[in-house]
C-alpha cells in the first residue's frame, strides 16, 4: 500500500505532466489519480486483481518512476553510459540466470566475460537457449530478473568492454 508521501509525490507528478489519469494496482490495492478539470481526485480501494500498471492517457508518458513498490512493467530506459555495451535478448522467452534453480548464476556483476561466455538462458517453448556474451569485458549491471518474461531486443546485461 502506498504511504502518504508516496501518494503526494504521485499527485504532484500527475499535476506536472499532461497525463489525465493514472491507475496503479499493486499487492491487492488500487490507486487511481484522475485529473478531470482543475481539481484532482484521489481514491484508494482494495482490489484482488493481479499487479499491473495501466496508464490510461496516451498523451505524455510519466517520465519519472514512482517511488512506490516497483510496478511489473518492462524496465524503463535508464540513462545508459554510451561506452557500455548492452546485451539484448534475441528472442521472446523466460530469462534465467543459471542453468537450473540450484545452480549458481552464469555471471554476476564484476565477472569478466569473453565472447563465448554463457551469460544466461532464455527459455522458449520448453527449449533452453544459452546466450553468449559475444563481447569481451566485465559485467556492470544485470537488467532483467530471474524468471522474468523478456521480449525481443530487451536489454539484459550492461558490459564494460575491455
Amino acid at each position, binding site marked *: 500500500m502506498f504511504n502518504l508521501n508516496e501518494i503526494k509525490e504521485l499527485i504532484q507528478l500527475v499535476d506536472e505532466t499532461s497525463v489525465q489519469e493514472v491507475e496503479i494496482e499493486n499487492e491487492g490495492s488500487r490507486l487511481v489519480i484522475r485529473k478531470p478539470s482543475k481539481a484532482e481526485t484521489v481514491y484508494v480501494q482494495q482490489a484482488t486483481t493481479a499487479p*499491473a500498471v*495501466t496508464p490510461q492517457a*496516451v498523451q505524455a508518458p510519466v517520465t519519472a518512476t514512482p517511488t512506490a513498490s516497483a510496478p511489473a512493467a518492462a524496465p524503463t530506459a535508464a540513462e545508459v553510459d554510451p561506452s557500455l555495451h548492452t546485451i539484448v535478448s534475441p*528472442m*521472446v*522467452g*523466460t530469462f534465467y540466470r543459471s542453468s537450473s534453480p540450484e545452480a549458481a548464476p552464469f555471471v554476476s556483476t564484476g565477472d569478466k566475460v569473453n565472447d563465448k561466455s554463457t551469460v544466461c538462458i532464455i527459455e*522458449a*517453448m520448453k527449449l533452453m537457449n544459452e546466450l553468449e556474451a559475444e563481447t569481451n569485458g566485465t559485467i556492470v549491471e544485470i537488467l532483467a530478473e530471474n524468471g522474468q*518474461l523478456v*521480449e*525481443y*531486443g*530487451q536489454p539484459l546485461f550492461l558490459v564494460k568492454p575491455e
Partner: protein
Amino acid sequence: MKFHKILIANRGEIAVRIIRACRELGIATVAVYSEADRESLHVRLADEAYCIGPTLSKDSYLNLTNLMSVATLTECDAVHPGYGFLAENADFAEICESCNITFIGPSPDAITRMGDKSEAKRTMIAAGVPVIPGSDGIVEDMDEAIVIAREIGYPVIIKATAGGGGKGIRLAEDEESLIKQITAAQQEAQKAFGNGGVYLEKYLTSMKHVEVQIIADKHGNAVHLGERDCSVQRRRQKLVEEAPCPVLSPELREEMGAAAVRAAVAVNYSGAGTLEFLLGQDGQFYFMEMNTRIQVEHPVTEMVTGIDLIQEMISVAEGNPLSFRQDEVVINGWSMECRINAEDPERNFMPSPGKIDFYLAPGGPGVRVDSGAYPGYTISPYYDSMIAKLIVWAPTREQAIAKMKRALDEFAIEGIYTTIPFHMRLLNHETFVRGDFDIKFLEENEV
C-alpha cells in the same frame, strides 16, 4: 470456456479491430509488435505488449516461436490471427492446439483442405457447389486436352499447375490455337517452374467477384451473412467493396448463400470464412476459392447485418453456439468500403510511406473508420500500405455513394500521398454508379 486473455497475432488496423472487440467483451489483450511497429496504435491500446522481433515479417509476425512464447508465458487462452501472416497457416493452428491455446479460426484440417486448390475444388464438386469448368487435374496428352476443351467450350485457359504470379497462363481461342499453345505452355512451365504439368479451365469474361461471408460454430451450425461485391480491383488487389451486390437477385443470393453453407459444412468448418465466387452476366456463379479467415472487408457485412463478426468469432471459438439462426439474419441497407492506402494515384499508385503530419477522420451518421493511424504516426515501408478503411452505411446504394463521397471529402491526411483522390473519381464514374462493373473494370477504364 470463457476466454480471459487473447493474444492478437497481427498488426495495424485489424489488430486494433480485434482489441476493440475484446475490450467490449471484457477480455484482456496481448499485442505483439516488430521493432518497426513500436509506436503502433495496437501496441498502445492493448493491456500488454511485447516486441517479438526485428522489422522483417518472417522474423517477427511470422516468428512462430516468439509468438507462442509470448502466448504461453502471458497465459493467453486464445490467439486471434487476423488476416494474412499466420491466419491460414495450418501448422500455426496446430501448434496453438498442442500448447492448449485456442486458435480463433477453423481446424488445421479445414485450413489444409481449403488451402490446396485442387483438393478444395474436389470438395466443392462433391458438395454440389459449381466450380469453373475445367480438366480434372493435369492434362496428360493432346487428345485429352482437345476432348476436354470441346466439352468446356472455348475460349480456354491453359494454366501451369505449379504456376503463380500470373505466369504460365495462356489463352486458347479455338482448337487450332489450343494445339499450338499446349506444347508451348508445357515447355514454358517446365522451364519456369520445373514442372510441365498444365490444366485447362474455361475462360470466363465479364465476371464479377462476389464473395459470401459464412460463420459456423463447433456444433455443426453454419450460417451465411450475405455477399460482398469486390470487383473493383487493381492488379488483383481489392480497392472498394460493397454489400449487397448490385446485380444479385434475392433468388441468386439464396442460391449462393446455400452453396457457401454447404461448402462450410463439407469441411466441418468453424469460425468465420469467405467463399469467393466468379459471377457471370448470365447469373451463373463458380467457386474460386475459400478464405479460411476473417477478411479485410468484413465491416461492410457487419454494417448491413448488425452482427459483430469478430465477437462472434471469439464466441464460437469459446465453444458457444452461434448467437443467431439463418432466418434471423437480415440484410438491411447498403454498405461500402474504400481502402485508403499510402499510395500516389497520380504516379501509378507508387507507395508513399512516411509520417502523417495531420490526420482527421470523417464522422457523422453512417460513417465508420477502421484504422491504426493517428497524427504523427509513420506509415513504414515494410508492411502493407493501408492507412485506413473508410466504411459507410445508408438505406440505399445511391445514398451510400453520396455519403462515401462526403466522407472522403472530409478525410484529411497530410504528409503522405493517399488514394483518396482516386476513390473520389471512382465514385463519380458512371460505370461504378451503374453497378454492373466487372473485375476488368479498372483495367479497361481510366479512373
